Structures are given as C-alpha cells and as structure tokens.
C-alpha cells in the first residue's frame, strides 16, 4: 500500500520537483537535459495516473478513476504547455528551469484541488496553485506590464482567498464539519429558513464568489484581460487551461456532494453568472486590438458556457459542461500555442494587426489559426460547433428557450471578432517581419488539426465524456 501510494501522481511529482530543483542547481549549463528530465517526469506521472489502479476515499482526500482520468488530462495539458513554453523561453533568452518547477507545483495544486474531500484541503490546493501563478505571472521581470499584472493578481487573489476562507468558516460554523460527505449529511437535514440554512447559503455564496474569481467568470472577470496581457504568452496558456479545468471539477464536486440539497440556491447563481459571462465576453471583445486581451474575453465567454450548462443541473447539462471544458482547453491550448510560435519584428505577437499577411509568409500557420478561430466561433465542422451544440441542446431540453436564443445571438456577435483575426491573416497585406521558430511543430499541428478531426469524428470525445459521466454516477466522486 505504501509503495502503491508513492506512485500516485501528486507524490511522484512532488518528489520529482525536489530532485529537479537539486539537479538544476548543479547542472546550470545543461538546461536542455534538465528539461528532458521534466518531460520524463510528466510522462511517468501521466502513466501512473491512469495505470495506478488506486482508488480510495480518505477522510479528506479521494482518488477515483474519474479523478485519475482528469489528472491525466491535466498532466497531458501541462506537457503540451511545457513543450510550447520551452521554445518560447529559449527564443526570448529567459530560459530558467524554475519556470517549469513552479508550474509543476501549480499542477500539483490543481490535483490537490480536484482530489480534495475537505474544504481545508481544497483551500490548500487553491493556495498552492495561486502562489505558483503569482510567481509565474511576474516572471518577465523586464516588463512593467508583467509586474503590474503580478501585483494585481496577487492583491485580488489574496482577497478572493480571504473570501473563500470566510465562506468555509461560515459553512464550518453552521454545520460543524469541513468534510464534504459530513456537510452533505448535515445540509440534508437542515430546516429551510432556519438560521443554519441562511448561514450555509451565505457560506455557499462566498465560496462560489471566490471560485468564480479563480475561474474568471463575470462579474469577477476584471483581472482576466490585464493579467493575460501582462504575462508571457506561455503563462497565459497555462492560466487559461489548467486552473480552469481544476476549478470546474471543484465546482462539480462542491455542488454535487456537500451542497447537493441546496440546488435551488446555486443553480440560479450559476445560470446568471454564466449568461453574464457569455454576454460580457462576447461584447467587450469586439473592440480589442490586443490579441491576448481578445483571447481573454473569448475565454470569459467560453467559461460562461461551462458554468451555464453546469448550472442546469441535468445530466445533459453536466455532460455538456464536461465536453465543453475539454473542447475549450484543447482550443485554448491551440490558439495560445500558435501565438507562442510566432513572433513579429522579433518580439512576441501583441496586436492583432501583427498577424497581417501571415497567410502569405507562413501559410501553414495561417491554416492552423483558421482552424482554431473557426472552432472558437463554433462554425462546423470544427469541434467547437459540437460543444456549443450540446450546450444549446441541454438548454432547450431544460426549456430555457429564450436563454438559448440569447446564447446563439452572442455566438454570432463573437463570430465577428474571430472573423476579424482571420481577416487580418488572410486578407490584409503587410511587409513587416513575421517569423516562426520552426516551420512545423508536430505537437502544435496535432493540437490544432485535432480540432478539425475531432469535429468530423466527434463521437470519440463524446464517448469519453459519457464514460466519465458513468464513472461519476456509479462510483461517487
């Protein structure tokens, strides 16, 4: 048992990170080798995450096949991100192995978050993630925007952590427990409109607000564009994928285990917040000139779709949100991944107009961006269409017809700014220097083209989410 436990990915990664920090101290000049070791570490822990066959529910921590698959997805995601990041950092001459070790600590934080079965462990996971994100955002010391972003995120993040703790203490105070299952038992028996009931509702609202901040959902979205813009593209890639998946799972677990009997409270909150994010994300993106800010608003509206379908509290909605989360992560990885690969006048891509004329100099990359943008806009046959399709289907099955009309109108509006990017790439002419690190990156190509291939054969992903759903309901989360 002890030996087995050593191989759960969290522990494996923690030990691995310690060793890599030591190795890096002594092998300062062999960064490429150390990076290979990091990749090896990720591959090994990915292997054990799905082949470990460990599942148990401890008082405050659980491991199950569902979580193992999600951890596998998280590790896979970081593997891809590291792949993009490495080239980007080498190009910018700021390669430091610390960047990767800190990212791995963040990855461990996300794993702890999704495995937590107690509110305090959840808090620990979130803090571990946030601390590493503070460091990563401020990584680019030379840029004032980066420092500004780091301070902003630190102050706001600390405040939201405080709100989270406040919510947790309210829940603890009125239920007497921090364990998910115990809270669930107590919440079940609480009488409606008693003092305890109100206290728990306040607790839920505070916890939800804090998690919404981490998720980047409107009206807690103000930090997203600034921080996306200020940090390195590679950090943005990380920010827009791993924490989002983790927070989504945390939402799922919190609402379906401890607070399940409070459906009427949180489902309305989620639907409102989700709809607001879709609207704000779609409309505010229209005037953005900076591609990172544009993608930030696009992320806000995408997260809105996830939260909205989660708030429906139906099987359809749950599956739709799972599906959408995976699709969104793939798309975000691809779109930011492409931007890490392209530079303009030997600095990174900042403005949309920096991409002008890409189709003539680098047609291959232009096709990749075309695919990712169309997928984000939800145009068939890309996978983004299927994701939006099942969200809308879930909405209609729950008889939210007007809401679904509003959602599709917002997708039309958001299609405008994705088209603007395509327009810049294909129709605008410019003579400035656009360069790419390599003519074709296999990982990037697979990542982007998978959006098209999965769109034509969407049942693979659909079967995966159905399988996850089965796991969710047969075994407890």
């Amino acid at each position, binding site marked *: 048992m002890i030996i087995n436990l050593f191989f759960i990915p969290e522990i494996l990664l923690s030990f691995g990170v310690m060793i890599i920090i030591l190795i890096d101290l002594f092998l300062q000049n062999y960064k490429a080798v150390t990076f290979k070791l990091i990749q090896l570490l990720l591959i090994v822990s990915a292997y054990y995450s799905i082949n470990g066959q460990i599942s148990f529910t401890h008082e405050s921590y659980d491991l199950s096949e569902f979580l193992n698959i999600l951890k596998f997805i998280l590790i896979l995601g970081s593997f891809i991100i590291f792949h993009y990041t490495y080239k980007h950092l080498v190009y910018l001459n700021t390669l430091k192995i610390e960047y990767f070790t800190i990212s791995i600590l963040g990855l461990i934080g996300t794993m702890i978050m999704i495995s937590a079965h107690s509110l305090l462990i959840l808090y620990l996971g979130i803090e571990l993630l946030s601390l590493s994100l503070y460091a990563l955002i401020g990584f680019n010391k030379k840029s004032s925007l980066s420092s500004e972003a780091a301070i902003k995120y630190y102050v706001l993040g600390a405040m939201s952590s405080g709100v989270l703790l406040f919510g947790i203490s309210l829940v603890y105070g009125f239920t007497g427990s921090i364990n998910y299952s115990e809270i669930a038992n107590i919440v079940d028996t609480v009488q409606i409109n008693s003092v305890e009931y109100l206290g728990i509702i306040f607790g839920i609202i505070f916890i939800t607000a804090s998690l919404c901040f981490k998720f980047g959902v409107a009206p807690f979205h103000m930090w997203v564009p600034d921080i996306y813009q200020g940090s390195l593209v590679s950090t943005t890639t990380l920010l827009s994928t791993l924490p989002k998946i983790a927070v989504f799972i945390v939402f799922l677990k919190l609402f379906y285990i401890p607070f399940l009997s409070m459906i009427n409270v949180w489902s309305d909150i989620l639907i409102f917040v989700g709809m607001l994010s879709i609207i704000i994300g779609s409309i505010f993106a229209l005037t953005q000139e900076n591609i990172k800010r544009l993608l930030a608003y696009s992320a806000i509206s995408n997260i809105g779709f996830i939260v909205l379908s989660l708030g429906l509290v139906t099987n359809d909605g749950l599956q739709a949100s799972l599906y959408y989360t995976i699709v969104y992560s793939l798309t975000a990885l691809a779109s930011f991944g492409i931007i890490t690969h392209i530079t303009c006048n030997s600095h990174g891509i900042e403005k949309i107009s920096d991409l002008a004329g890409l189709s003539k100099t680098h047609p291959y990359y232009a096709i990749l961006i075309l695919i990712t943008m169309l997928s984000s806009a939800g*145009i068939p*046959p890309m996978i983004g269409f299927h994701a939006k399709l099942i969200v809308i289907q879930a909405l*209609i099955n729950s008889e939210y017809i007007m809401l*679904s009309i509003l959602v*599709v109108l917002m997708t*039309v509006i958001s299609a405008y700014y994705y088209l*603007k990017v395509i327009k810049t790439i294909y*129709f605008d002419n410019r003579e400035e220097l656009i360069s790419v690190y390599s003519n074709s990156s296999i990982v990037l190509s697979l990542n982007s083209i998978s959006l098209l291939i999965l769109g034509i054969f969407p049942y693979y992903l659909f079967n995966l989410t159905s399988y996850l759903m089965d796991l969710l309901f047969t075994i407890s989360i």
Partner: protein
Amino acid sequence: MFDYPILSLLIWLPIIGGLFLVISENMSNKLSEYLTLVITFIILLITINLSINYDYTSDQLQFVERTNWIDGLNIFYFLAVDGISVSLILLTAFINFLIAIYAVSEKYRNKSSFLGYFLILEGLLIGTFTAFDSILFYIFFESLLIPLFLIIGIWGGENRKYATIKFFLYTLFGSVLMLISIIYLSSIAESFAIRDFYSLNLSFNEELFILIAFLIGFGIKIPMWPVHTWLPDAHVEAPTSGSVILASVLLKVGGYGMIRFMLPITTEAGIFLSEYMIYLSLIAIIYISFVAYAQDDMKKLIAYSSVAHMGFVTLGIFLVFHLLDSNLTAAVIGLEGAIIQMISHGLISAALFFSIGIIYKHSKSRLLKDNYGISMYMPIFSFLMLFFLMANSGLPGTSGFVGEFLVITSSLGSNIIIGLLAATSLLLSASYSLKLGKNVLFGENIKNTQGYNECNTNEIIVLISLVIFILYLGLTPDYLFQIIDHTTINIIDSINLGRR
C-alpha cells in the same frame, strides 16, 4: 443497387481533393488545373450515372447511406436522394465542371488553393443537398460559409473585407436561429432525422416560432426582400467564379431548405402567414426589379435580378401554403415551378456572371458607362450574351420561361391580382436585361480603348454548353419534370399527412 457508397464518394472526393490542393501551395498551375478538371469531371459522370439509375417512379429515398455518427445524441450519418436532390446535385456538378474549365484560362494568385476551395465547396454543396439528418444538413449548410468567405476575401475586389464579414455574419445569424429550431424539434421528436419531424404534433405557437426561424434562416440565404442586402455586396466583390457558384448554386440551398423543412414541418403556421410571405415575394419580384434597373454596375444589376428571380422561387413555395386547402393541383404546379425556376436560374445566372467576368477581364471595369460597343469586337460573345439576357427575361423557348410560367399559372389559381403582379416581372426583367444588352453590347466604339477581344476556346465552351442546356430545358423540360414529379407530389402528400 450499388456496391460503393456513391453519395459519400460524391461528397468526400472533392473535399479531400480540395484540401490536398489547398495544402500543397507550391503545386504547379498546370497540375492543379488538371487535377481539378479530372475531379470535377469524375463527379459530373457519377452524378449523371446517379440520375440515370435514379428510379423516378418511386416515392422512396434512394441511394440511402445511414450509419450511426454520434451515438449519445442520436445523430446519424444519413445520406439519400430524392428528385429535388438529384436535380440540384446535377446542377452543382455541372456548374463546378464549367468553373473548372473557365479557370484554366484565367490567372489567379495562388491558383491551386483557389481551385481547392472550389472543390471543397462542391463537396459541401452536394452534402447539403443529400443530408437527411438535420444536424448533418446544418453542418454542411454552415461549412459552406468557410470556403466562400475565403474565396471572396482572398481573391475578391477592393471592398472585399467589408463584404465578406457582412455576408458571413448575415448568414450565420440566420442559421443559428434555424439551429435552435432544429434542436427544439429534435427534443420533441427524439430524433434528428428530417423525415421524423414531418409527423410531429406541434402546437400552433410552436409552429409559428419555428416557421419564423426557418424563414429568417433560409430567407437570408435565398435571399428574400428585405434581408437581401448582403448579396449585391458579396457579388460585386467576389471573383467571377465565386459569383457564379454563389448565384447559381449557393442561393438554391435556401430554396431547398424551405422545401425540405418549412413546407412539411410548419404547415399550419405557414397557411396562417402565407399571405404576408406572398407579399414579401411580390415585393422582391417587383421592387427589386426596379432597383436592378437603376444600377450602373453590371454585377449589381445581375445580383438584384437574382434576388428578383428568387422571388419567384419563394412565391412558388409560399403559394403551396396558400393553395393547400383550395386547389391542390395549382399547389403542385407552383412547387414544380419553384424547383424548375431554381434549376433554370442556376444556369442563366451562371451564364450571365461568366459573361460579365469576360467583359471585366478586358475592360477592368464593371460599370455600364465604361463598357460599350462590344459587339464590334466580340461578335460571337455578344450573340451568346444577348441570348442569356433574353433567357433572363423569360423568353419562351428558354428555361427561364418555364419556371416563371408555372409559378404564374399557379398564382392565377389562387388570386388573379397575385398572378397579374407576378406577371409584371416578364416586362420588368426584359427592361433591365435589354438595358444592359443595349448599353454594353451595342453602340459605337471605334477606338476600343477597353481592348475587347474575342473569347478564347474555354470561355466559348463554357458559354455554349450553358446555351445548350438553357435551350434544352426550355424546349423539352420533360426530363426535369420526370425527376421531380413524384417527389413534389410526395412532399405535398407528407404535408397533408402532417396535418392530420
């Protein structure tokens, strides 16, 4: 009947060939031309073979291919053809073959991608006309926008950025509303197959909302007045071949969708609203004809004339609603007229846009005032173009006459005023067509500053083959009638089935 999946072949051969051409940017022009010619020719042969083997005495769907696509959502990869599909596939394959021939003699930057996008478009169009699962239909319907967006945007005129985005957003807006009604219908029918929607028991209000969504979706595509404004912009900016495919096939997707979705699904609401929809069609026919007359840009003139002619298609379709209770024969005639009008307009508008493309190639201007006296230097071309203009105005003996005649006959079956108003089109379309012919083809042009020169062989082949088919359909429309006859009656039957 067939060992190989013929419809899948028709869809995926051009798409895969097109993707190959798009990706291989450095392919030599010659090779890409040959590849496109061969692929479009094979597709044409297969479609002809299909139309010969199509059993037009049967009411059943034919060449059915049906496999599970997305299990959990009950979405099928469901392809089949009926008479309307066969006629429209034939049109698609024929026009694309002509475009391939025409493109051989043209110069384009990055030609292999240009041809590749057209091949992709052909595959998607055939997919749209053969999909019998609503989500599959929607996917093809919506994907059509991508290659056309790129064709107009990359190879288009000066104002192309505005035109492409307008066109894309307009059509996207229409189609997302349609998507919602499709999902709503499927949530009731628990299936996405289009035919399962026909027998649903919808309340009147549900039908009304679904009808309006479909009307917006397909009405923008066709386009109907007042949502037609994207079409002239898109046409003016598109390269010649882009205009051809847009006018001759893409607009028909809207009419096809109306016949496939609106007529059988939302019958009651359709009957309720039919009067107003007929007014809309009449406005398109009459008002847009006047607008066409006022244009000084040849392409815009033909674009508006397209809108006016598509008014006949919508009129024929909406007359079915109007006549369903009173005069079933007239309803059948109206629907047949609408279908024939779609096919015939597909040929005539293609011919006119090709002709304008040829003129533009010499004079580099599309304006009426810059082009005059062409007949002095391009006599053969002028003769052919005059013929097309006559066909456009519905001269008896050309295919343009058949469709309009049928629709007008049908409208007389309901109300003489509607019939009279629709018939004014014969006068109005003749006036703007002849205005174009008179100004551009005839007149003194001694200096020939535009550098007019007789067409080359490819262009002559393209135009002559269009002449042959326009005359063929005009003189003996029997074959087309045979193909669509059972299907139209079948559709009218399923409408009545749904009402009971």
